[in-house]
């Protein structure tokens, strides 16, 4: 069965033996995130903390619930979408691409039936401090809501725009939102609402379910709705419900919904924070301020959170998993929709966003440059610095094949291409630029610029041997190994290109 809500997803994880319900009392102050970080690092079961030492009775913290297994980060989400969890990476990508080709419009439900309205508090009764927001890393600027979906207005869509922006909790009614100019919702705020001196209504949604989380991770073009793509992913409409204090609609099954306004011209401190680069970025900067108008939630809510930064290297977390399992198929579909015949586009497995691998043929000279230009000037402009192009029959999810292509096929003289020097926008969270280059705390936007590069690691038809023997003999060899008890180590499903 498709898991449409966060609770159904947790139940599904538990049924699969992938959830560790922890009854011991745990502190939100670094302890929950330390346990989660270690679970991420060791590929252990997802920790669900049932007793947190503050907040509403019965509240759970769930550490990196969307994190998939190291070898198959998409496996849990595949299960959530009723796809075989054993699907090889390329097959999973194609299955998700097919789902995204069939968006499904949401339905609006009566607030009386919406689980997220079990408790409704407005005005002075709504307090952020009733929730045990985790303090994630030592050195962070504060406590954070990390794994959330921000719902914002969208003139082109009835259902608003969904995206993910972390929120640093300041007090009962205030938080700072990481709004990086260049992204869709921040652009809307900085260049429309704030210029008109109008507050922008928003809703910060936590625990909205796998399809919603995936859709928020995707780069959905203007005029299309994340809500419809989420429906396509789960093959059924997402139930939405009207907010209490503004005109936005939010997923009805959410665990917590924080309604509020981003106040024009006002800023609050944000950061530093241990971010997806795997380092603690700084300096502390000023970011737009969220003022809370209402909080609605389930009784005994389950609060998901992400220990950011642990999705670098071998480990995964929710961010890196969503990037692989949702961002990758979305980018693959997006590039194909733009007319590029790519086999797959997927993030480099050891850093969650900065480098992507695209498997493609080279139908005509200049094609790779054109394709890179498209990525850097559209969905990848802020976060992606490098594109690695490999042969269409190389699986971008197979790090061995991609690394080999970089090492053997990319000629330093001719195959590395830069898009200008210091001309492209960049998130100020990166660590390779000096503080001066990143810009000051100026209006939450970034002065940071950088170069972007693409690496042509296509083989031109001369790839080293990947296997020996016929397909049938390799199959017999694998069976022999399985019979000999080598199954666990042998069960790779991201086989190199020849077996795709």
């Amino acid at each position: 069965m498709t898991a449409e809500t966060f609770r159904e997803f947790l139940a599904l994880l538990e049924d699969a033996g992938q959830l560790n319900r922890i009854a011991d009392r745990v502190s939100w102050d670094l302890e929950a995130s330390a346990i989660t970080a270690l679970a991420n690092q060791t590929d252990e079961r997802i920790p669900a903390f049932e007793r947190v030492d503050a907040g509403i009775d019965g509240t759970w913290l769930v550490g990196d619930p969307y994190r998939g297994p190291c070898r198959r980060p998409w496996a849990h989400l595949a299960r959530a979408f009723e796809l075989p969890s054993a699907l090889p990476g390329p097959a999973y990508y194609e299955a998700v691409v097919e789902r995204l080709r069939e968006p499904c419009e949401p339905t609006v439900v009566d607030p009386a039936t919406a689980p997220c309205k079990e408790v409704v508090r407005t005005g002075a009764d709504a307090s952020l401090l009733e929730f045990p927001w985790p303090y994630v890393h030592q050195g962070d600027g504060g406590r954070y809501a990390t794994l959330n979906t921000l719902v914002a207005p969208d003139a082109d869509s009835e259902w608003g725009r969904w995206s993910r922006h972390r929120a640093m909790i300041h007090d009962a009614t205030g938080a700072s939102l990481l709004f990086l100019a260049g992204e869709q919702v921040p652009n809307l705020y900085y260049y429309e609402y704030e210029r008109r001196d109008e507050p922008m209504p928003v809703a910060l949604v936590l625990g909205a379910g796998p399809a919603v989380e995936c859709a928020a991770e995707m780069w959905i073009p203007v005029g299309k709705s994340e809500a419809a793509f989420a429906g396509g992913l789960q093959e059924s409409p997402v139930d939405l419900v009207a907010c209490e204090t503004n005109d936005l609609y939010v997923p009805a099954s959410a665990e917590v919904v924080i309604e509020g306004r981003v106040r024009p011209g006002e800023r609050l401190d944000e950061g530093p924070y241990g971010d997806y680069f795997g380092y603690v970025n700084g300096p502390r900067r000023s970011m737009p301020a969220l003022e809370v108008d209402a909080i609605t939630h389930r009784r005994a809510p389950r609060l998901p959170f992400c220990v950011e930064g642990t999705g670098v290297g071998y480990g995964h977390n929710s961010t890196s998993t969503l990037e692989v399992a949702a961002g990758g198929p979305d980018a693959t579909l997006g590039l194909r929709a733009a007319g590029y015949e790519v086999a797959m586009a997927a993030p480099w497995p050891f850093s969650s966003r900065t480098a992507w691998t695209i498997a493609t043929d080279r139908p005509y000279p200049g094609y790779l440059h054109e394709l890179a230009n498209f990525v850097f000037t559209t969905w990848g402009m802020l976060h992606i610095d490098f594109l690695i192009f490999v042969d269409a029959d190389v699986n971008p999810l197979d790090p061995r094949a991609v690394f080999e292509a970089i090492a053997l096929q990319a000629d330093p003289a001719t195959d590395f291409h830069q898009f200008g020097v210091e001309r492209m926008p960049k998130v100020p969270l990166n660590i390779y630029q000096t503080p001066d280059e990143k810009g000051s705390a100026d209006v939450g936007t970034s002065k940071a610029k950088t170069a972007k590069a693409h690496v042509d690691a296509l083989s031109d038809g001369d790839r080293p041997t990947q296997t020996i023997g016929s397909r049938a003999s390799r199959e017999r060899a694998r069976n022999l190994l399985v019979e000999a008890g080598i199954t666990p180590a042998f069960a790779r499903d991201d086989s190199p290109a020849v077996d795709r």
Partner: protein
Amino acid sequence: MTAFRTHLEFLHRTDDCQRLERPDSPSPQVVAAEAMRANGPALEFTPAGGGVGLASGVYGGVDQLERRNRYPWTRLGIGLGVDRDPAYVDVLEELIELGGRVDDRDVTYVPRAASATDRGLRDLELPTPPDEAWPRFTLGLCSIGSDDGSYWGPIHGTVLDGDTVRARVPEALSGQLRRGDAVTIALGVPAAALATTHLLAVTDRLSTPIEARGVGSTVPVVPTAGGVVPGSSEVVLETTVAARQPETRSEKREFWERLVDATTLTLDVRHVFTREDPVVPFTPLGTPLSDDLGLTALAIAARLYERVNGYWGVSPVEWVLLPAEGRLGICLVATEVLYPGFEWQLANLLFSLSRCFDTVVVVDAEASPRALGRVLGDLWVKAHPSRDWLFSEPNAPAARMPTYSRDDTGARLYVDATWDPRWKPEFVAPRVSVTDSFPPEIRDAVLESWTDLGFEDEPDVA
């Protein structure tokens, strides 16, 4: 010194070697290649008939692109007797010591463990690769005797008939041979001996007798018709250089031949010696993670590590790694950046010491060679795309491993993924990790209560 069979037993004891019956089909090379592709354990094929036992993956066969508790150097390090869980640099240093020149020869002679046999060469039933006509042996050691001592080198080849092999040997050795000269081939030799042959071959140091190298005093030997060979060898073939040396087409190569000129020799087999229940290592040639690739990678890394740390009078380099996953086309080096520009000097020194690769990635000294995934994360997030990716003009000698089309010259690239030494410490971003992001008291408490919290696997915070 660890005999090959002792090495194999140890891999079994650490659950890093799986025994299976040798199949009629497919070829053991196919099974070995698939096991490596799956990052499986080493394999030992027990003989179905009267042939030798076979073992693959005993020197390498592991990639680092997933978290694991064994590394590309683990099996060789065990074979060298470094440790059960050997540190990378310890393996490199042991290898350097084995290949080092010694002033006083101290050679230990022992009785031959392998005894003469009536078996013909064919009776050994060495495996035939799927697309080849003849049985093949790999990971062998050849020895040539002289008045000065014995010269060792790597050797591999095919069994043409019951009395003839066609083998590939370094030109530095074959150049010493004339028709009728004796050459002894040893299979199943101690890891110390085999690894040293790779080190000496790829560093062009085959012209010194083995008795004058560290390995000569480490590995007990036995005299043969050729030169001395390790006394514990599983199979010993005494051969002579055949009178007729036919022109041959290009043969399959072991990885060391990508760096060293080699020639084909036809050898007449005069005597076959085997131990009781002999087991010989083999590797599928040309496939990812093969043992010959792993041995060559470690040999080059050891030499580079030694040279760069001997260059400045201090030892700023923590480790040098040529990942087998990149088939030696890329070199990673972790170093303290002594002063601005040091990383430029270091990268270019590495280029000048080896023509193997065209790319060097310089990372900070804190990076662990066990965490290649993290290093490959830093490749993209710590190096500025325009300032820290530095390319040379395309007038350097062409690197040997990359396969892109080029002439005799090529460009070089180094990526500086280190903190700029001019930055104030407060600008250097702390890492996010279990050890860096939480105070010790919380970290210790979590580790202590880990199993009580319901987790099953022992945490590894190394």
